């Protein structure tokens, strides 16, 4: 046993990453169309989780209105790539636009709520998420209200359209890798360390010369941009979007998956998404108990394992020493 463990340790982590990547690339043909679709759903949640993780896990700001930025990204793309206004901007041009729109939303929400901490922030962001959904539902001339936006263009690369579950799977996988890479680099940067200092003790961080307002705003803006990408991909993949796609439940799901997976930890987010979004798909008959279990899990996790299933390395160190 001891020997096996030491062999594991000799293998460089890059090998694991490579094997894991090969496995992920080979997955869709092995599981078929239906599961490729489900994996795509999980993948979008992984992207949202990585984004919200920046806000909640790294910077320690509890954002319950994360779905608003997701909605901004989705509607941002859908409005200019559907028959609604007869405009058809290609996906790849609009993707940076969606990111910018979501980031702008994040900044606009961030400015007024910057001075608040913890609980207040949670409720105000929750209210913001609801306002966006109410607006989507009622601004009929623009968003077409509850009837939603239909026949949204699929992205194309040359003549190659991304329109099947397999193709979307690879596209989302690429998106996840990019997001995870960016989030990881951020976490290990000066900005990431500032966030962590701020999360642990805002006053001490301020004394050490960290500009609290600037870094909070940055966390909000960057977190929102991830949701913008997720939203644009969601809209293009579904082909039609409705206000009820962007309910509070999405925010809660994303929050649950990062908390159960492990706040601040990217592998944790992936595991959390697989467990929370994937398992209910496997166990169709227990669907109605899903949210019951999620709610209970949040309480239990907070009491017995607040670091989550795969704790972030830094948090683990903090707790064990």
């Amino acid at each position: 046993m001891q020997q096996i463990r030491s062999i594991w340790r000799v293998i460089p982590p890059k090998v694991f990453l490579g094997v894991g990547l090969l496995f992920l690339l080979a997955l869709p043909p092995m599981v078929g169309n239906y599961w490729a679709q489900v994996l795509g759903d999980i993948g979008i949640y992984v992207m949202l989780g990585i984004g919200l993780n920046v806000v909640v896990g790294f910077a320690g700001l509890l954002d319950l209105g994360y779905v608003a930025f997701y909605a901004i990204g989705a509607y941002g793309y859908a409005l200019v790539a559907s028959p609604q206004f007869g405009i058809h901007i290609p996906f790849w041009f609009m993707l940076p636009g969606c990111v910018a729109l979501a980031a702008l939303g994040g900044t606009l929400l961030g400015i007024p709520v910057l001075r608040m901490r913890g609980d207040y922030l949670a409720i105000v962001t929750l209210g913001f998420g609801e306002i966006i959904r109410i607006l989507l539902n009622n601004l009929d001339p623009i968003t077409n209200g509850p009837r939603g936006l239909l026949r949204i263009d699929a992205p194309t690369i040359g003549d190659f359209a991304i329109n099947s579950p397999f193709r979307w799977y690879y596209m989302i996988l690429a998106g996840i890798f990019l997001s995870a890479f960016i989030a990881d680099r951020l976490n290990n940067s000066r900005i990431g360390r500032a966030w962590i200092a701020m999360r642990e003790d805002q006053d001490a961080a301020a004394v050490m010369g960290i500009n609290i307002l600037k870094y909070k705003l940055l966390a909000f803006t960057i977190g929102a941009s991830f949701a913008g990408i997720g939203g644009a991909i969601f809209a293009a993949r579904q082909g039609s979007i409705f206000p009820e796609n962007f309910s509070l439940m999405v925010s809660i799901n994303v929050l649950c998956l990062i908390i159960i997976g492990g706040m601040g930890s990217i592998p944790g987010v992936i595991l959390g998404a697989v467990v929370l979004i994937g398992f209910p798909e496997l166990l169709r008959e227990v669907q109605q108990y899903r949210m019951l279990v999620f709610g209970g899990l949040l309480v239990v996790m907070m009491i017995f394992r607040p670091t989550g299933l795969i704790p972030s390395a830094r948090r683990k160190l903090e707790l064990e020493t």
Partner: protein
Amino acid sequence: MPYFLTPEVIIAQILNGLTIGGIYALIALGYTLVYGVLFMINFAHGEIYMFGSFGGFAVLTYFVNTGFAKSHPALSILGAFLAAMVVSSLLGALLERIAYRPLRYAPRLAPLISAIGASIFLQNVMMLIIEARMQVYPDVIPENFLEYGWFSISYFQIFIILGSIFLMVALYLFIRRTKTGKAMRAVAEDKEAAFLVGIDVNGIIMITFIIGSALAAAAGVMVGMYYTQINHMMGFIPGIKAFTAAVLGGIGNVPGAMLGGFFLGLTEALGVLFMPAEYKDVIAFSLLVLVLIFRPKGILGEVVSERA
């Protein structure tokens, strides 16, 4: 859209605003009381209110089915209120003991997430019990109006406005005049010092949860009788609005929560005259954001949001 502004409409809306405001105020008191002693927002408070409403519903339905409500309407209403308060108080105490007490000294985010979890959990428990169906409150109070020229008010409205004011006055006297109330104020001021002078801090925190929950239960029964339809999601929006009311008045401040509740109710009722009804919820949320930006201490001021 220009609305037909007649004195009748305005008076009717003011009365609607006072009615719903009284309900907001009762729920808001629970937030404020708990915030006062623990400095945390009890996210599951809306669900406590929802459970209270269902507790009252079960008893009232039973009384109506057995015919007791016909012979003793006042007694059966009283019974419904008592049952609702017992259900909610037990739930509030349980919640405090299981979900919040173990986390009292944990990092700030932990009790908040635990509260959100408890809220989702309770919503789904009720959803499974009622099988996600809308429940209809039985009629007990006759739907009559008192009319006097322009002025017309329903019995329901009189009942809710007076009932909520009665409960608020009772709470205020309890906090100001009794020994337990004094202990609650001491714990809110400084937990360690209260402990040193011999106050059972855990017990007082428990009592605070119980009182807040009982008030929410009363609001739940009133809403059930007023709007007649209740479901498992009924706690969500009033929960946020009552929280807004608590912040408006200055969270942690008991008279502030009452004032905030009526203020919010009136603002919503009169706001609907000037904009489409779908935006009613937007008014409350916008008000919340504005207050937090410009006057985080609330109208009467007490605890600053920075401390949160």
